[in-house]
């Protein structure tokens, strides 16, 4: 089955779920003639139509990456999510160095340049953002900073 057909199927199911979700929206007694449900339902209907068109007339198969590349991207996803969760508790410097080194290594498999990139970026960006643009960043875990 072609990718577009699978995608179309996902869209159709998503549109139906969205429609069902729209039915659950609470309305208030002060509501206007259209109300909060109609527009989402219109969107769901249009999306449903598009999904059906995709199933009926799929495009040529896109060039999907090899299994190894999928693996790398999955690792990247994990690195990014952990970065998002750790930037607060761990402080900016450590978490950024680790995440930047990770992303760098995934693009070019060279541990040395990756480590250097991580260290360099975390320091340079910290200085730019903290002192150049005045964003409220913490270098180290907030607990250490008192």
């Amino acid at each position, binding site marked *: 089955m072609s990718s577009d057909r699978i995608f179309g199927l996902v869209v159709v199911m998503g549109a139906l779920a969205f429609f069902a979700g729209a039915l659950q929206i609470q309305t*208030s*007694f*002060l*509501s*206007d003639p259209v109300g909060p449900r109609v527009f989402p339902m219109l969107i769901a209907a249009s999306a449903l139509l598009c999904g059906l068109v995709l199933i009926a007339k799929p495009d040529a198969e896109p060039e999907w990456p090899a299994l190894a590349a999928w693996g790398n991207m999955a690792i990247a996803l994990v690195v990014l999510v952990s970065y998002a969760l750790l930037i607060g508790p761990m402080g900016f410097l450590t978490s950024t160095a680790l995440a930047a080194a990770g992303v760098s290594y995934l693009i070019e498999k060279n541990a040395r340049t990756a480590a250097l990139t991580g260290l360099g970026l975390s320091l340079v960006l910290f200085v730019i953002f*903290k*002192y*150049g*643009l*005045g*964003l*409220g960043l913490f270098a180290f875990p907030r607990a250490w900073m008192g």
Partner: protein
Amino acid sequence: MTKLKMLATTAALMLAGTTSAFATECIAPANAGGGWDFTCRQVGKLLYDLKLVDAPVQVTNMAGAGGGLAYAHVVADMNTDADVIVAASSATTTRLAQKAFGDATADQVRWVGAIGADPGVIVVAKDSPFQNLGDMVAAIKADPGSVAFAGGSAAGGFDHMKPLQVMKSAGFSDITKVKYIGVDGGADAITQTIGGHTQAMTGDMSEIVGFIKSGDVRVLAVLTEARVPGFEDIPTAREQGFDVVAVNWRGLYVPKGISDDQFNAWATKLQAVADSAEWKETMTANGLAPFTKVGTDFQGWVDGVIAETETLSREIGVIQ
């Protein structure tokens, strides 16, 4: 001289925003440009100009959930922070009374003071057939669909309540028939009204000052107890026989967990701002009426207002 100034500027640009430069933070729970933002910026500026704080006050815009996000943030994360003040207005207490901030209640923060009030107004375009509030009320009674109001708050919000209160006081009970559209702020509402898309605008005096002076609009009524200084030719609703008073006070709240001394210190500072000549000038320029209540006095008043709003909202049917 100029060179020195340039050097200093360059240095300042490079060191800009090191957080230590801002001791006090004023949170405006909306995007820049609205009433809360105005409160934070004006009060923040005066606090610094009057040397009541050592460093410029940093204004943080924390938009979300009509102020609910900032409220939740202050209650949860800043409960003992004595260096933070948060802008508030009638909209804040209206939403708290209508349980629009989820489970949040008004006693989770301390209400430190109000330093001015924005009188509610009912406005029409200059070519409107309505000459006074009575004309308009009569027209709505005859055909509720003939007059649509535009206002800056969502349905059920503070701006929507004003015409509903007027209609109620005129003995019209079918208030769900009154047409109202909520647009993005008072300026947008007045634009729609002048453009003839809606027949009337409900909002605050400060939002229409420029349009009054330019003669593009006619204010049918101001919803205060007495006429507003500087706008003496605008009649109140009360003198036209509709006993409705709705002012949008501008004030601040602080976190619950700060000490009584810290609370009183803020109250004193706000009083000083309210008493300053600069603030009085700002108020006249922006159509604000004097309205100063600080400290425990204000706290008590807010408790009363919330109870009242709750009753009214229930009567009108906004909450069950």
